[in-house]
C-alpha cells in the first residue's frame, strides 16, 4: 500500500488599507479599501476565487465523485471563511459537501492565521478554540489534527497540541532535522506519548507548488508519468507521501495556462490506477502506522524560504516592534469587552502583516516584494502603526 496525503492550505488575510495618521481618532474603517484600491480585500478575494478557488474546488469535487477513494485535507483560516461568507458563500458549500461525503477533512489552526504562539499563549489558545468552533459551526466536524501558522513548529508546541487532545500535528520535513530519515513515515514528537507527527515531503510538494512552471528548471516540463515515477521511487523510502501546499498553488501561483489543472486532474486518476495506491486524509495518515521514531525540533522550523525559520515575519526591527506593541495592547483591548474592537485587534495579528514589512530581500525585488499589497515594507509598517494607534485610542474611550 502506498498513500498520498494531499493537504491544501486555504487563507486570505484581511489587509489593512493605507490608513493615515490624520484618520486616527476619526475613522475606524481599517480594512475596507475602495474596490479598486491596492488593499481591496474584496477585489483580491474575488480575483483569486475566479482563478483558483472555484476551478480547483470543482476539479477536486469531480474527482471525488469519480473516485470514492480520492481524499483531501484542508486547513481554512477564519479570516478566509469570513471573507468567503461575504463574497463567495458557495465556496463554503462546496467544501461542506466534500466533508459530508467523508472525502475531505479540516485541520485546526489559529483563527486569524497568527503567530500568537510566540507572543501570548492565552491569545494563541483562544484563537485556536475560536477556529475549532467556527469549523464545527460551518462544517459540523471537530478537527483532530493541528497545524500552526506558516508551519511554525517546535517541541513545546507539540506538547501543547497533545495536551489539547489532538491526534496529530503537521510540520516541515526538513533535512537538517531528519538527517537520513525519510519524511514518508509517521513520527512521534519528542516528549509526547500519543501525538503523531506528519512531515511535509518538501521536494515532491515543491516540484508542484514552486517549480511546476519554471522553465529554467532542468525537469521542466513536469509530466504526470514523470511525477508518478518520482512518487513511486520515493515510496521506497516510506509508504506515506505528504504533499502539503497552498491551495492557491492551483490557478494563482501556477496559472491555468501552465497546465497545472490538467496535471492535477490526470495525476489523481493515474495514481489511483496504480496497484494498492490510495489517498488518505491527515487523520487517516496518523493511523497508517505506529511512529517509527521520535523527532525533536527544539528550535522553531517553518515551511518558508531556504532558512525554514521565522525570519520573514519576525526579524527586522519594524516587525518585532510592531508585533510587540500589538500584543502589549491585548489586555486593554479584551477588558473593553467591545466585540468589534477585539475583532479589529485580532485581525492585526495575522502573519501576513509582519510579512509585508519584511526587508530581507526587498532590494532584490523578489517574491516577498512581488506578493505585497503595499508599496514598500516601510509603508506597510507605517499604516499598521497608524491603525494600532487608533485601536489604542479606542481602548481609552
Amino acid at each position, binding site marked *: 500500500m502506498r498513500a498520498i496525503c494531499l493537504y491544501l492550505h486555504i487563507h486570505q488575510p484581511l489587509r489593512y488599507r493605507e490608513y493615515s495618521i490624520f484618520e486616527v481618532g476619526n475613522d475606524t474603517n481599517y480594512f475596507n479599501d475602495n474596490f479598486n484600491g491596492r488593499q481591496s480585500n474584496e477585489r483580491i478575494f474575488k480575483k483569486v476565487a475566479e482563478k483558483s478557488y472555484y476551478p480547483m474546488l470543482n476539479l477536486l469535487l469531480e474527482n471525488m465523485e469519480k473516485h470514492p477513494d480520492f481524499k483531501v485535507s484542508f486547513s481554512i483560516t477564519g479570516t478566509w471563511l469570513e471573507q468567503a461568507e461575504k463574497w463567495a458563500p458557495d465556496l463554503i458549500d462546496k467544501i461542506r459537501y466534500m466533508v459530508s461525503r467523508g472525502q475531505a477533512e479540516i485541520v485546526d489552526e489559529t483563527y486569524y492565521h497568527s503567530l500568537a504562539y510566540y507572543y501570548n499563549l492565552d491569545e494563541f489558545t483562544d484563537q485556536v478554540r475560536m477556529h475549532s468552533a467556527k469549523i464545527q459551526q460551518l462544517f459540523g466536524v471537530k478537527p483532530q489534527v493541528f497545524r500552526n501558522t506558516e508551519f511554525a513548529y517546535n517541541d513545546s508546541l507539540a506538547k501543547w497540541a497533545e495536551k489539547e487532545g489532538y491526534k496529530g500535528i503537521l510540520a516541515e520535513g526538513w533535512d537538517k532535522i531528519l538527517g537520513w530519515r525519510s519524511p514518508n513515515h509517521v513520527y512521534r514528537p519528542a516528549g509526547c506519548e500519543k501525538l503523531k507527527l506528519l512531515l511535509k515531503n518538501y521536494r515532491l510538494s515543491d516540484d508542484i507548488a514552486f517549480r511546476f512552471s519554471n522553465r529554467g528548471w532542468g525537469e521542466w516540463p513536469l509530466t504526470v508519468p514523470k511525477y508518478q515515477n518520482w512518487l513511486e521511487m520515493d515510496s521506497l523510502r516510506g509508504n506515506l507521501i505528504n504533499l502539503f501546499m497552498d491551495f492557491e498553488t492551483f490557478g494563482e501561483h501556477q496559472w491555468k495556462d501552465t497546465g497545472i489543472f490538467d496535471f492535477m486532474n490526470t495525476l489523481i486518476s493515474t495514481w489511483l490506477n496504480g496497484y494498492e495506491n490510495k489517498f488518505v486524509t491527515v487523520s487517516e495518515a496518523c493511523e497508517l502506522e505506529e511512529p517509527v521514531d521520535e523527532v525533536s525540533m527544539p528550535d522553531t522550523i517553518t515551511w518558508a524560504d531556504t532558512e525554514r525559520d521565522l525570519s520573514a515575519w519576525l526579524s527586522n526591527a519594524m516587525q*518585532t*516592534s510592531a508585533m510587540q506593541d500589538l500584543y502589549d495592547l491585548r489586555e486593554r483591548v479584551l477588558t473593553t469587552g467591545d466585540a468589534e474592537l477585539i475583532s479589529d485587534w485580532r485581525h492585526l495579528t495575522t502573519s501576513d502583516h509582519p510579512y509585508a514589512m519584511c526587508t530581507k530581500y526587498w532590494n532584490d525585488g523578489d517574491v516577498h516584494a512581488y506578493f505585497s499589497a503595499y508599496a514598500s515594507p516601510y509603508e506597510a509598517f507605517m499604516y499598521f502603526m497608524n491603525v494600532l494607534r487608533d485601536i489604542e485610542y479606542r481602548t481609552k474611550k
Partner: protein
Amino acid sequence: MLGWELPPHNSGGLGVACLNMARALSRQGADIDFVVPYTAEHPEINFMHVLSATHLDPIYRYGGGSYESLQILEKIIPTTDHQELLSIRDVQKSYCEFVEKYLSDYKPELVHAHDWLTYEAGILAKKNYGIPLVAHVHATEFDRAGMRSGNPLIHEIEYEGLMMADKIIAVSEATKRIIHEKYHIPLNKIDVVYNSLDENYEKSDYFFRDTTYGYLNKLKFEGWTIVSTVGRFTVQKGLYNFMRAAALAISKNPKLMFVLAGDGEERNELIAMAAELSIAKNVIFTGFIRGKKLRDIYSISDIFVMSSVSEPFGLTALEAAHHGDALILTKQSGVSEVIWSAMTYDFWDEEKLADEIVSISENPALRESLQENVKSEYHKITWNQVAKKCTKIYNNIINHKRY
C-alpha cells in the same frame, strides 16, 4: 565632451556628474577633450584636456547681470557684435564658434553633449562634420519649470538636439518618459544611465562634530526630529507642498524642526508662508551652502526629503543617505527608481508626506530600518558602471556608422 561646468566652478549636480563620468571613462581608455564656456583652473583634472571656449570668468557662464558694462563685455568677448548686454545666448554663440574652429583641426570619433546648453554645438558637429552625437539629458526644460511649459526657445533647442542625436542618454526612467512623451522621441533611441555619488565624496576625510550645530543638537537630545531638504528654491523643487506638509506634520508631532538649505526666487514666499502657517518657529532657512556646511546639515538631520515636482535624478538624496539620513522621495524623482529603502509619495500628496514624517519621527524602528538599509544601497551604482554603459553606447554608434 561638451559641458557647461566642472568642479570647482559648478553650481549644482551637472558639473559633478560630468567630472565623474569623464574620469571613469578615461580610466577605461577614453581620450577626452572637454569644452567649457569659460577660462579657469581645474587643479584636480589631469586625465583629460579641458578646453576653454571663451575668456570669460566662470561666473559669467550663464550670461552677465544687468550691472556689467559694455566695456567689460568687449573685453571678455571681443568677437561678438554686441548691441545688448551679455546673455547666455552670446556665451552659447561663442561656444559654438570655438567648437567649429576646434573641429576644423581635430576630428573626434564622437561628440557627447550635456544638456541643452551645448546641444547647438553638438548639432553643428554632426551637421557640418558628420560626427556622431550623443545627447545626455540631465534635465529638460519641463523639469526646470516644474512640469509647466518653460522657455520655448530652450524647448526648441532641446528638441533639435534630441532629434539630431544618434543616441540619447537619460539619467532616469522618469526623464526617458518625459523625452518620449513631451519631445516625441522613440523610446528605443533613449538609454537610461543612472548617476552615482561623487567619487571624492566618500574618500574625503570629512568628520562631523556634534558641537557644529549646538542648537539643533540640543533639540535632538530633547526628542526633536530634524527634517531637511536641500536645493534651489524654485518651482521644480515643490517646496510649497513641502511647507504645507510640514505644518500638517507639526500638528501631529510638535517636536519637528524643518531645515531648508539653499536659496532661490521662492525664498521670501517660503518665509512668509512659514509665518502664515504659524510654524515659523519650526523652520530654519540656512541660505545657500555647499561643501562641509552642507555635509553638516545632512549629518545633523534625521530625515531628508526630496520634494521635487520633477527631478531627473537627485544626487542630494545619495549624499544624504551617505550621511545616514532616512530618505523620503517623491515618486517623480529619478533616484526613487534606484533607491528602494526609502519612503515615497506623490509631490502633491501633502498628507502622505506628513504621515511619513510623523511615522519616522515617532517610530525608532522605522527610522533605523530606513537609515540602515539605505546604506547598502546608495552606492549600488558606481561611476565605472556608468562609464561602461557609455562606452557600450559609443561603440554601438561608431560600429553602426561603419556599415
